[in-house]
């Protein structure tokens, strides 16, 4: 348990120090969200209708941008080799890294969401729901990202290939995340979507450490 917490602490420290990009990701998230009205037009009605989708897409893109740092630096400076030899199983180390990564990339986005909600004319109740779905859904996005990052970590210029692999896998999360926010005709449909979103997150939390560890082990020798 102490080793587990130490990994989390190490990654948090690395992400928030000089050279860490936790704040850059938030800035990117806000900018993507803020640039949409320039393309859509300043119609307030339309914007508040599209706001949940815009926020979700912005979050998805920002998380894609952030995932490269998950294993790349550790692979380059050799820490990954040390982690494979560590007493703690690689799966648990990866789980710790996932927690740290979520805290430094997804959580800041969620904290910045109210700002975007004001810009996009989203009312208070809807904003709370968006934040709630993001809290439930972003772990799944981080998990799929981790698998993609692990698969492409040994490729020298793997920056563009990982999103190509991850985006199709993220579609269910996106569908259920946005459906949970829709006020459709069928009552209970948005609640069902919310439960499916939670199910995807739980499922991916179980599978991801093993798949990611396998990919890292297979890539190493």
């Amino acid at each position, binding site marked *: 348990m102490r080793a587990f917490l130490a990994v989390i602490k190490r990654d948090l420290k690395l992400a928030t120090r000089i050279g860490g990009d936790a704040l850059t990701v938030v800035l990117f998230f806000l900018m993507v969200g803020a640039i949409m009205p320039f393309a859509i037009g300043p119609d307030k009605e339309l914007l508040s209708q599209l706001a949940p989708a815009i926020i979700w897409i912005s979050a998805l893109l920002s998380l894609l941008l952030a995932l490269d740092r998950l294993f790349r630096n550790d692979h380059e400076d050799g820490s990954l080799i040390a982690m494979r030899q560590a007493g703690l199983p690689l799966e648990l180390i990866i789980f710790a890294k996932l927690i740290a990564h979520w805290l430094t990339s997804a959580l800041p986005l969620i904290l910045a969401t109210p700002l975007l909600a004001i810009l996009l004319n989203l009312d208070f109740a809807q904003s709370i729901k968006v934040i709630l779905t993001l809290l439930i859904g972003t772990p799944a996005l981080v998990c799929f990202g981790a*698998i993609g990052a692990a*698969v492409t970590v040994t490729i020298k*210029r793997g920056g563009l*290939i990982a999103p*190509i692999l991850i985006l*199709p896998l993220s579609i269910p999360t996106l*569908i259920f995340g946005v459906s949970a926010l829709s006020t459709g005709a069928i009552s209970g449909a948005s609640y069902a979507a919310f439960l499916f979103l939670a199910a995807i997150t739980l499922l991916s939390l179980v599978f991801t450490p093993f*798949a990611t560890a396998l990919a890292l082990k297979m890539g190493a020798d």
Partner: protein
Amino acid sequence: MAQNASSEPTPQDLGFFSRLAHPGYFLQWSAYWLKPLAILVCALLAIGLFYAFYNSPADYQQGDTVRILYIHAPAAWLSQFSYAVMAVASIGSLVWRHPLADVSAKAAAPIGATFTAIALATGALWGRPTWGTFWEWDGRMTSTLVMLFIYLGIIALWRTFEDQARAGRIIAVITLVGAINVPIIKFSVEWWNTLHQPASVFRLDGPTMPMSMLIPLFVMFFAFSFLFLLLHFISMRAEILRRRIRSAERRNAQRLRSQG
């Protein structure tokens, strides 16, 4: 080939399945199958297309456009079957680290992508006269499109690795992750929006199609499946030979360096 394989165990030392899967031996036995398979595929395609175009009724609502079905449905079936082949091969490369499993997974990806593209293209051509649009954001169509994206992503990944043995194992991981995800994607997308007709051949209460349309459809199913097998064999053979050429080139380069 005998000189090439001298350092590897000879086929006689191995069990039946290992002998089948030995790359050198695979090159030998698959060579005998290519011609009969090609003849079988041609015959089945000829029969199937004859039935599809001349000897089956036009639909009472859709008229002759229904004949697209005989290309569309088998292609859509193979787009999923190819992924299943890739997934099984991936288990092979992860569990036994077998080089032939890598080759099989790599060879299946472009074939599956092509069949998926054919299913999408014929679906679009069929949708235009019957639905009035080339593309609709319908569940089954969208999940096929996502399938195409997954295939293309995997093909792109194969092309970025230099060491093909390592690429085979890493891509096997992402292929299996995709295999878990494909049903989830299919379900979520169909939940999202559905216009496409439900399955009408494989149902618990029996097919809802008349026999005159089922027979050509089944012939085409078999024709396409054997076509997949034939193409898979050919591209596996090509891939094995490509790897041998690459290692021969590397040996030559080493020899030249040690001489010079």
